[in-house]
């Protein structure tokens, strides 16, 4: 994607896709109520822009294609929304979505790289940045122009290993590493600020030697696209962070920004009602 493509049509196309992914995510949650749906509704637009917006070079028919850009979905529990995206793109058949969390399915409540399109183990938080930094270093040593994207959550950034990785990435000028923070600002037991506050996350990244871009509305496909484009254009040599302010449980009444939404299931009749409104 380039700046000229950020026109109304692209906005509409990506927004429609995000809306479809939102609906499909609710359908998955209807089938498997144990899934972490609130955490999976906040990063939808981030993934849609990456996967449909032309940022991620990929070959769904050959998920481990050498020439691909890497996307590490570090907040694995909050990526139920990736299942319809990967199926829609052709990583696996759409009918697999019907089997989510069922015996014999590879689509579990927390995804692992048995799912075509997933790169790493994602169930335990705080690993993506370090593994991504290693991949970014390797790709640089190989002399390729590929980018490693890591999607993480703000709660996940409590894990100290992230900050070891952030120091490392800056030290080695891994400008092919982009960390996108799904900054929904809610952990499992309440607002991040009330648990252990990140204070000013942008300043922290800056202090660690990163280029930082804030996206005030992380559900705006245009704003996210612009931030990703700016990362592509950046010539500072620094690794890049995008802090996208999002809403946990986005657009679900009673769930959106609810402090204890993390393991809350959406009642089936509400899902029906929401999907009815959306169809």
């Amino acid at each position, binding site marked *: 994607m380039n700046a000229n493509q950020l026109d109304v049509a692209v906005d509409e196309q990506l927004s429609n896709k995000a809306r479809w992914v939102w609906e499909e995510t609710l359908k998955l949650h209807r089938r498997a109520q144990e899934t972490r749906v609130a955490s999976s509704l906040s990063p939808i637009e981030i993934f849609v822009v990456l996967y449909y917006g032309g940022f991620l070079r990929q070959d769904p028919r050959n998920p481990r294609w050498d020439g691909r850009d890497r996307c590490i979905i570090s907040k694995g529990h909050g990526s139920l929304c990736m299942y319809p995206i990967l199926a829609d793109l052709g990583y696996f058949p759409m009918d697999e979505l019907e089997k989510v969390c069922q015996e014999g399915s590879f689509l579990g409540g927390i995804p*692992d*790289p*048995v799912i075509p399109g997933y*790169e*790493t*183990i994602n*169930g*335990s938080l705080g*690993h993506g*940045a*370090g*593994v*991504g*930094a*290693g*991949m*970014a*270093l*390797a*790709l640089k*040593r*190989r002399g390729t122009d590929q980018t490693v994207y890591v999607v993480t959550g703000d709660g996940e950034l409590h894990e*100290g*290993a992230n900050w*070891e*990785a952030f*120091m*490392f990435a800056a030290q*080695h000028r891994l400008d092919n590493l982009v960390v996108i923070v799904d900054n929904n600002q809610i952990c499992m037991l309440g607002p991040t600020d009330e648990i252990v506050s990140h204070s000013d996350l942008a300043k922290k990244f800056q202090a660690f030697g990163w280029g930082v871009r804030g996206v005030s509305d992380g559900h705006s496909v245009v704003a996210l696209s612009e931030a990703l484009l700016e990362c592509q254009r950046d010539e500072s040599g620094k690794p890049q962070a995008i802090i996208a302010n999002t809403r946990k449980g986005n657009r679900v009444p009673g769930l959106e920004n609810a402090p204890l939404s993390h393991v809350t299931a959406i009642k089936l009749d509400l899902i029906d009602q929401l999907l009815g409104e959306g169809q």
Partner: protein
Amino acid sequence: MSTMQPPQVRAMRDTLLLSLYQAMLQDDDIFFVTADFGSPVLDKIRADCPKRFINVGIAEQNLINVSAGLALEGFKVFAYAIAPFITMRCYEQIRVNLALLSKVRSINVNLIGVGAGYSYVVSGPTHQCYEDLTVIRALPNMRIFSPADQVVAASLPAKCLASNGPKYLRLDAQVLPVLYGAAAPDFDLGFYEHKQGEKVCLLATGYMVHTALKVADKLAASGVSVGVIDLFDLCSFSEDQLQSMLASYQGVVTMEEGFRGRGGMDAMMFDYIARRGMDIRMLNIGVEGEYHFELGERNVLHEKVGIGVAAVTEKVGRFMRALPELKSDLLMSTKKLTVKL
């Protein structure tokens, strides 16, 4: 076996790193990552392979994660740090990004841990390492190599490069006597028989192989012949061959420089013997389960925790006396043993 020149006496890490340095000169796909832990040999790697040498700083969690990332991109990685830190500071990273990930992605990451057992004698229990065999062998897909001398250590890089998967190389920090000066052991077996004995075999790993040889000499002076086997591949030794070798013995004595009875080599042998239905009694020699802050020479510390030459000799003597088959025919020799000990 292949014949070799008698080597210059060095620490295990130095012979291993020299081999690895030679391999890195030939193979651009080898990466070396250290957690700010050095060796004179590292200077050669850093000087001659600067693009494939990375110091992550004192950050073992990141050491493992970066190594996993490099390996996912096809590099064969050697990660290097002090043994307790590279195994336990970053255990979850090893579990998730090496043991678990290697089930679904092909990666070759080799953890070089220096400082097995008490080898950092004066540094105390933070730097000493008695739990690593237990925690690493708990993880499926991990292999453990525990060399007893610099020659086996030197052969490890080639072994590790030849097969994918995560591995832990448990190295002693001290310069130890060379055991394999004339010939390197057969790596496919995973063990080497130093001595044949009559009723009991000492099955030791790492530094404890040296202790076992001394114990065997001491017992031999009393007229008692025990076998000594160095088990250096703890996860994929030839089970059939070892069983054949142990078939002539009535008792086996495991010897490890790690906690006894907490899931280390002794537990591995319990499983092995039970699983294969072997008719053999077992005695386990290991650090009696407590941390110690006392200072002293390694052999003195070993005696305090029950794994020194005198302590092991006494325990083996008692073990032999308790073997029912030995009650009559060893009466004389055990009496003699008691007097001499």
